[in-house]
């Protein structure tokens, strides 16, 4: 046991530096320094894959196929929110491949937590970047230097056609439809709730200006008495009949329709004031023990045949050439839920603000939820 270990142990016993493993307040090496030291990742099997994702976000058959083809184990753990994913990562847990949203990818890139990914090594990268120019230089990661795009999504309104009719007006205003009073939900998501208010009032969806936030809070408070709840469990709410009208993510309506006995009962619209869009990514953390295997995994996931299986499994499109038809067929019953790179290019995305901005937005959301 060297001196450092001893110190660490003493610290742990005292509880004082139990933080060492706790992920906050430690001084990090600056991002750039860490990155330049790391040589480019070589795409080859260098151990089992430690995989960290939302539960149920990749077709289990596809995952199993990777393990079989490369003779490695896929050691899976799951997160339930982007925030807890970041917290676990910052706490020093080693994962080989993670799936941050664009917003969190930006944050992890800024914090120097992601390895650079050499696109040239991925045999399938051309299928992404050659066809979908948008991802050559997305807002969250310059030149996609640390991330490979995964899924794309947008936020809209889902409703029960048998209760409210085959068409709504196509505006966020539809959430104020009095026929659905007591039967409507908003997503339990700060950005999405504030975002819909901002879009209705014509503000920037990332606004943290006090006067704008006040007006947004007032607007949602006006809707609140008629809400059944704030819930991100949209699939369940809509198919269980508790919800007739709901702010929801595009892939979830595909899931509802895929499971429903009567798919014709459900509608989805992408409001004209604008629909927030986003995308998820693949990334390799700097602490990854087997980055080579992670590269192989990403490349494997980019194969159109695997991507198609996955698109059919989760209902969200992936920007990979050769998967377009399968996605189009899947969303045929709800063409309004289609997400394209053109949607993303409209740049209605949730960005990271400063700590003060985040806290101002959070206080507004607390007021909305708790008032």
């Amino acid at each position, binding site marked *: 046991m060297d001196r450092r270990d001893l110190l660490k142990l003493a610290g742990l016993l005292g*509880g004082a530096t139990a933080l060492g493993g706790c992920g906050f*307040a430690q001084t990090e090496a600056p991002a750039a320094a860490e990155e330049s030291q790391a040589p480019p990742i070589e795409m080859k099997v260098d151990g089992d894959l430690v995989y960290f994702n939302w539960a149920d976000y990749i077709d289990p058959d596809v995952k199993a196929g990777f393990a079989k083809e490369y003779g490695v184990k896929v050691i899976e753990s799951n997160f339930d929110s982007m925030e807890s994913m970041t917290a676990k990562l910052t706490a020093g847990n080693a994962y080989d491949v993670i799936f941050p949203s664009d917003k969190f990818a930006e944050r992890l890139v800024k914090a120097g937590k992601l390895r650079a990914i050499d696109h040239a090594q991925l045999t399938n990268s051309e299928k992404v970047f050659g066809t979908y120019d948008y991802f050559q230089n997305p807002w969250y990661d310059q030149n996609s230097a640390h991330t490979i795009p995964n899924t794309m999504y947008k936020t809209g309104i889902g409703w029960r056609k048998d209760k409210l009719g085959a068409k709504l007006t196509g505006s966020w205003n539809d959430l104020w439809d009095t026929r659905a009073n007591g039967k409507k939900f908003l997503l339990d998501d700060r950005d999405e709730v504030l975002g819909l208010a901002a879009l209705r009032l014509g503000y920037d969806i990332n606004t943290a200006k006090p006067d704008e936030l006040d007006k947004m809070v007032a607007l949602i408070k006006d809707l609140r008495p008629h809400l059944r709840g*704030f819930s991100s469990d949209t699939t369940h709410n809509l198919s269980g009949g508790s919800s007739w009208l709901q702010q929801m993510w595009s892939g979830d309506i595909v899931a509802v329709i895929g499971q429903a006995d009567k798919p014709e009962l459900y509608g989805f619209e992408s409001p004209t004031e604008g629909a927030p869009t986003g995308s998820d990514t693949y990334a390799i953390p700097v602490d990854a023990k087997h980055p080579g295997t992670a590269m192989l995994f990403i490349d494997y996931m980019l194969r159109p045949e695997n991507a198609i299986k996955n698109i059919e499994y989760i209902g969200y499109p992936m920007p990979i050439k050769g998967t377009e038809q399968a996605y189009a067929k899947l969303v045929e019953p709800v063409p309004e839920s289609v997400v394209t790179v053109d949607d993303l290019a409209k740049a209605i995305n949730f960005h990271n603000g400063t700590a003060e901005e985040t806290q101002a937005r959070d206080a507004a959301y607390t007021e909305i939820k708790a008032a």
Partner: protein
Amino acid sequence: MLTREPEVRQDRPTKRRRTRLWSALTLPGTVWMSVFFLSALLLTVALSFGTTDDLGNPHFGSTLANWAQLGEPAYAKVIFRSFVYAGLASVICLLIAYPVAYVIALHGGRYKHALIAAIVVPFFANYLVRMYGWSTVLADDGPVLRAARALGAPPSLTILNTGFGVVAGLVYGFVVFMILPLYAAMERMDVSLIEAGRDLYGGPLRTFLFVTVPSTRQGALAGLVLVFLPATGDFVSAQLLGGPNQIMIGNLIQQKFFDGQNWPLGCALTVLLMALLVVGLSGYLRRSRRDEQEAVR
């Protein structure tokens, strides 16, 4: 039992050596508690004075800003609601658990243990999963309301996203914490006391009120505390069975840690809630100490 064992041995340990052995045995527990409980508690208190950087990482500090934010009326309102829900849930748990524990302890016979197991085993399943199950069962088009409507209930009747739903969820989630201490208290109770009550011309009701209830009061109080504490901080029931007007303090704390990316404020809320609960708990501790003293006398 352990204390007697050394007496059989040849070399009787002196009293002092025995004490040392006992202190040694408490060491692992002490270390465990100080590392994982006390240090976590200290961190929570320390971080309540901390700040958050632009990347959402918490840092230690010495600001009172988080505490100042707790002055927002929304927090007082939600904390009050949490106490009301937890209080209601505790009382309902007591009303449900008392007869259950009574029947099992006094009339369970040889099925006693099987009956207790039947109550405890379902609680091995994850709480979240069970609550999620309820949200399906109680949904507007779910089996319960479909059946109720078939029996003539008005179509406007809903259970999900109401205060009733949340309190029912809390009761369901924590009732076992009430049954077990009550069962233990009734098992320990001397049944001849009840017979004595009857012999002294006490009717069933009077015997129950003046004999059974006082001798199981300790169990009931323990049960109330065991239900009230976790119910106050619960967020699952309100999240899955509640609506916008049923948000509890646990939901707000959770929101500060996740969506809000504001661990320091979450810590301040946690410490405030703990402080309020400790004040309440100290009343219970005083009470139970007095009960003990009475019992000794």
